C-alpha cells in the first residue's frame, strides 16, 4: 500500500514539474511549485514509513514550512518585480485606481 502511494506521489510530482516548466504564466509555475512542495512532504513521510524509521518526519515538517515560506517569498518578490521593473504600465494602472 505504501509503495503504491509512493509511486502515485512520484507520478504527481512529475506532472507538477512538467506544469512548472511549461506553465504559460508565472502563477501557473508558482502553483505547480507549491503543489510540488506538498507532494514532497507527503513523499518524505511515506518514505519514512517505508524504510521503517518514522522518526524522520521532522524533515517533512521542515519541508512544509520551507515550502510555505518560499511560496510567499516568490509571491512577494514577483509582485514587486512586476510592478517596479518589468511592467510600468501595470504600475500606472494601479496608481490610477488609488
Amino acid at each position, binding site marked *: 500500500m505504501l509503495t503504491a502511494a509512493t509511486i502515485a506521489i512520484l507520478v504527481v510530482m512529475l506532472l507538477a*514539474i512538467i506544469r512548472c516548466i511549461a506553465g504559460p504564466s*508565472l502563477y501557473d509555475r508558482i502553483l505547480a511549485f507549491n503543489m510540488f512542495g506538498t507532494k514532497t512532504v507527503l513523499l518524505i513521510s511515506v518514505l519514512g514509513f517505508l524504510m521503517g524509521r518514522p522518526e524522520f518526519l521532522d524533515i517533512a515538517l521542515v519541508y512544509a514550512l520551507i*515550502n510555505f515560506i*518560499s511560496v510567499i517569498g516568490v509571491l512577494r518578490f514577483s509582485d514587486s*518585480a512586476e510592478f517596479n521593473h518589468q511592467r510600468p504600465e501595470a504600475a500606472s494602472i494601479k496608481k490610477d485606481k488609488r
Partner: protein
Amino acid sequence: MIAIAIVRTKDLLAVVMLTGIYGLLSASFFVVLDAVDVAFTEASVGAGISGLLMLAAITMTGRTEAPKRHKPLLALLVVLITGGMLIYGTLDMPYFGSFDAPVHQHVAPRYINDSMQEVGVPNIVTSVLASYRAFDTLGEVAVIFTAGIGVLSLLALPQRRKPYLVDESGKEQMYKQHIVLRVISKALIPIILLFALYVQFHGDFGPGGGFQAGVIFAAAIILYAMLFGLDNAKRVFSLSLFQLLAAIGLLLYASVGVVSLFNGGNFLDYNVLADDPIAGQHLGILLIELGVGCTVASVMIIIFFNFAGRREAQQNGEER
C-alpha cells in the same frame, strides 16, 4: 532529475523556481540514500534560503536573460573533457552501495561502532560533526561568518535616515492585500520558532542540529520581514543585535576549544570539560551547536536584511 536541470530557460524567475524544485528533489534523493541530516540541510538551504536570496537579487537585477551571442563551443569542449575524465575515473570505482568498498572499511566503522561509548550521542552524524571533526565545523562557521561580513561590506547602506514618509501609505496598502497571509503567519511564526528550538536541542537524537535550527529560525524571521515589512522587522529585531549574535556564536564555539585548552586537553577536546568524559562531550556538543545555531541564524538574517534593505532603498530612489 535530469529533465529539470536541462530545461533552464531564459526567465530567471522560473529558473529560480526550478532551482527550488531541484533543491527539494535532491533533498528527497538524500533521504532515499539515508542521509537524513543532509536532506534536512539541503531542504532548508537549497530550496529555502538560497532561493529567497536569489529572488531578492533578481528583483534588483531584472528578470530576463539576454540571448547568447557567441557559440559556446569551447565551453562545451571543456565540459565534455571534465565529464569524460569523471566517467573515466568512475570505471574503477567500487560499485554503488557495495559494502566492501574501502570507504566503509577504513575509518567509518569506528564512528559507527564506538561513537556511542566515546561520545554518547545516538546520532552518529552529530557526533562526527561536533566531536571527531569539530574543527571542520568551526571552519564552516567561520565561512558563514565570512560570508556575512562580506555581504555586509558589499551591501550595507550608510546609516538610515528617517523612514520615507511618503511610501508608508503605499506600503500599508500593499500589506493589506496580504491580510490572510498575515493572520496565518502570525499563528505560524511562534510554532516555527518553537520547532527551530526543538531541532536545535534534539540534534543529538534525531536529524537536526545547530545549523538546521539556525536556518529555520532565520526563515521564520524572514517570513515576518516579508509580510510585515522590513522596517517593522527591524524594529523588532535590530540588525546590530544580530551582528552581535553572529560574533558571539563564533566566539562561543572557539572559546569552548580554548577552555578545553586551559583544562589541559587539546583544542576542542571535550573530554576535559567535565569530570566524566561523556558528560564533557555532551556539554561540548551542546555548546558548540548553540554557537553554530546562533551564528548561522543571525548571519542568514543579516544577509537577507541587507538584500531587502538594498532593494527598498533602490525602489525609493527610483520613485523619486
